[in-house]
């Protein structure tokens, strides 16, 4: 290919990228401007210390070292009051408590996998990402967000992860990019074109073409941030930095996103109001608040963020001031247009007889029913479409959107 042909090829590609999906199909108009971000806390976070059952004496008996104190205005290390039964971990006071007041956040306790009780991180993460029944054989090439993307119009999905997660595996090539350390690309346009040429007839052709397109969009978006940094603005780090970048990209480019955060497996010294878990939560809260700020008020009204984890932890603390693998968790739902400020879904008194196998929270709201209910409302999916995403599932309508 000579230079003139090359330029022509580049010119031909540019407009195509705007109107075709990664699968090469032209999409119709969207049903809504809805944006969905799923945040996966890998490692099974200790839900009972985030949404604190402050009215349960059993909670305080079970966690002599780990319990969060009942709400007390004079004690900054006490739970933030949500209602008579529930409080919020104090590490989330500054970042997320204001969202509760604005009704922009809701918590769904006793949520998780109703049919997977392996208590294995990896097995249960796979279960959730695949979103398939655990009965029968699994199709590891079909994640539920990938199936959801296939049902939507004008969808621009992306995983903000180093590797393409199971949840987005499927027929279409979904791009992935980790936003922690994005630099200026060294492979120039001419090389990019030659590389695309080499892959044109291979299975990776669309992955490579899509990769270059997303790379350029991300670099463009992050250029603004560099300018701000050059003006002396303090740059956030870690997950907060990534979440702010996600907010910016989802405001302008993408509307279906997935990101994961590790470090939640706390078998030892997890801490209580302060300590290891509190530090993780503080960063997560700042990240979510940062995402909200960057995506901006207009897009935030159409956005839903769901924070999930593979399972909860043992209700009683273990011998190492930590917690072991449990079952039911607490999911968070955030969004500018949310009917929030409440604890949603089926609930049960937090006491010893309510525990599943006398060790952990039961699952009363299945993750698939929860997501099915949410996306049905968000995107107006009909029953047949919903069945293609979550076969055999009856959606739970929690009235959140």
């Amino acid at each position, binding site marked *: *290919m000579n230079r003139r042909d090359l330029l022509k090829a580049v010119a031909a590609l540019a407009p195509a990228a705007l109107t075709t999906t990664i699968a090469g199909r032209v999409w119709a108009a969207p049903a809504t401007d809805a944006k969905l971000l799923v945040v996966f806390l*890998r*490692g099974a976070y200790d839900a009972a210390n985030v949404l604190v059952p402050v009215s349960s004496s059993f909670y305080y008996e079970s966690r002599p070292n780990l319990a969060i104190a009942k709400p007390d205005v004079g004690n900054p290390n006490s739970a933030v009051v949500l209602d008579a039964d529930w409080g919020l971990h104090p590490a989330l006071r500054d970042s997320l408590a204001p969202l509760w007041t604005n009704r922009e956040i809701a918590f769904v306790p006793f949520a998780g996998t109703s049919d997977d009780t*392996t*208590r*294995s*991180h*990896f*097995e249960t993460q796979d279960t959730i990402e695949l979103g398939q029944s655990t009965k029968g054989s699994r199709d*590891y*090439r079909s994640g539920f967000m990938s199936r959801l993307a296939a049902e939507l119009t004008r969808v621009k999905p992306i*995983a903000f*992860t*180093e*590797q*393409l997660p199971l949840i987005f*595996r499927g027929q279409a*090539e*979904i*791009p*992935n*990019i*980790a936003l922690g*350390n994005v630099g200026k*690309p*060294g*492979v120039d346009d001419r*090389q*990019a074109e*030659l*590389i695309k*040429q*080499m*892959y*044109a*007839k*291979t299975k*990776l052709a669309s*992955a*490579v073409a*899509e*990769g*270059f397109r*997303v*790379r350029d969009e991300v670099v463009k978006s992050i250029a603004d941030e560099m300018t701000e940094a050059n003006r002396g603005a303090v740059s956030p780090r870690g997950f907060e930095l990534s979440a702010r970048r996600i907010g910016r990209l989802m405001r302008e480019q993408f509307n279906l996103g997935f990101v994961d955060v*590790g*470090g939640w*497996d706390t*078998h*030892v010294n997890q801490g209580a109001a302060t300590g290891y878990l509190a530090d993780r939560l503080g960063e997560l809260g700042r990240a979510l608040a940062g995402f909200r700020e960057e995506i901006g008020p207009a897009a935030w009204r159409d956005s839903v963020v769901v924070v999930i984890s593979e399972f909860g932890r043992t209700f009683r603390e*273990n*011998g*190492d001031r*930590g917690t*072991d*693998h449990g079952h039911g968790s607490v999911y968070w739902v955030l969004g500018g247009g949310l009917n929030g400020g409440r604890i949603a879904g089926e609930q049960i008194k937090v006491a010893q007889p309510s525990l599943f*196998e006398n060790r952990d929270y039961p699952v009363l709201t299945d993750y698939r029913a929860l997501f099915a209910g949410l996306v049905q409302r968000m995107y107006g999916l009909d029953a047949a479409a919903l069945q293609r995403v979550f076969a055999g599932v009856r959606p739970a309508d929690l009235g959140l959107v």
Partner: protein
Amino acid sequence: MRTNTAGRWSARGSAILGIGIAAIITGGTARAAEISVHDLALIDRLTWGINGSSVAQFQKLGAARWVDQQLHPAADSALPQPVAAQIDAMPDAAGLTPAAINAFQAQGKDADQLTDPEARKTAKQAYQQALNDRAKQAASRSILRALYAPAQLRERMTWFWLNHFNVHQSKAELRLLVGDYEDRAIRAHALGKFGDLLRATLRHPAMLRYLDNAGNANGHLNENYAREIMELHTMGVGSGYTQADVEALAKILTGVGIDLKPEDPKLKPALAPQLVRDGAFEFNPARHDYSDKTFLGHTIRGSGFAEVDEALDLIVHNPATAQHVSRKLATYFVSDEPPQSLIDKMAKAFTASDGDIAQVLAAMIAAPEFDASLKTAERFKDPVGYVYSAVRLAYDDKVVLNTVPIQRWLGRLGEGLYQRQTPDGYPLTATAWNGPGQMMLRFEIARQIGSGSAGLFKPEQADAKDRPAFPLLQNALYFGGLSRTLSSTTRGALDQAISPQDWNTLFLSSPEFMVRQRAEAPHEPS
């Protein structure tokens, strides 16, 4: 074509250096010109990547003897002298003692106790730096061995088992322990008996710290390690064990932990003979639950550390373990979805040989399914495979003087050494590594490796100078074998390269370099 390309570049000033090296490499690997694509594929499948030296070694021995030496490397299978010299210069190359771990911990505690905030900060930073240096050295040692050890299959297996029995360097003082864990618990048993390997990991402080068994005691159970032994290390999830089995194994493992103190713990006279100590490893009978346990349908009488041996025997000899381990090996070497017939052959060898890893691998290599996979399947390289094979091919046995750029590349590609946070280890299948984001990073790294020495020949010292070096991918091996494995599309793109750097970048970015060599010339689209 060959002379033309070489001629075009030799006219360029920037390529003069490359030609000098080319002459040396060509001299050493003249025989590479005669290698068949099938032999290329076999070597590439069992090593960290094809290069002139490995081809020369293969041709000297012949296929059968070469495979046999890879499966059973001689005790004196020595590293090349410049590699050995770099490793010997590392402070913990000879092993880690409890006293050395103690000294490190004391340094950390001393730093914490300083009252002056500035001095405390400086001392803490120095302590963290010292820990970081140890992890970096461990990674460096690992990389040097992977690139240059003649016993290549043992190095592949070392990485495989390190991943199978994963630990994460960021927890506690693990940065200090990972190098010793790799060298003495993993590499030493990488081609030996699986049971010995499992026991070596169980007795290493890195594992006991990482999966929290150091805190597991009677009345203060911590199930973490017990669960992962069965789920990840041996039988596999869904193989029939129950939550009750996990709790029973956790009780069996009470008292299995770490002790860095020189003196023995104070024990009642009746318990004293039960104490087991070995370096930093300790079985403390005072922390053990002596009740009888029911484990995998067997009764294990409360008897101390003997319970652990009894339980491990049950696990290792469970047919699920032979299947689980064989499936994982076949996935790593053969295909994302290895045929069950192959796994069964390997599992049979596992059972017949009491878990002899070399025999399981021999069964795999001898199976027709393995040979078929050389011809038809594409084994996509994971990031470690990708980076190591690129550096091996680009520099052959010219030993790099600094592995930090390699460590950085692996980290960016999401497969850094000792950096997998979770105990499942990095995924082995292609789908985890061939997404758009990963491919973009690979092309960037291809450019860095292909454009010059990339810091690989600049020793990590304050005033060190970069030694002259240039990656030479268009070498005798390329013309004598690899070029025949490229599609016409790839060759067409390579023909448009405007410099040796550009050619290298494109070659390392090519679809053919993302997978292990195939034992057939490419199928050209008509």
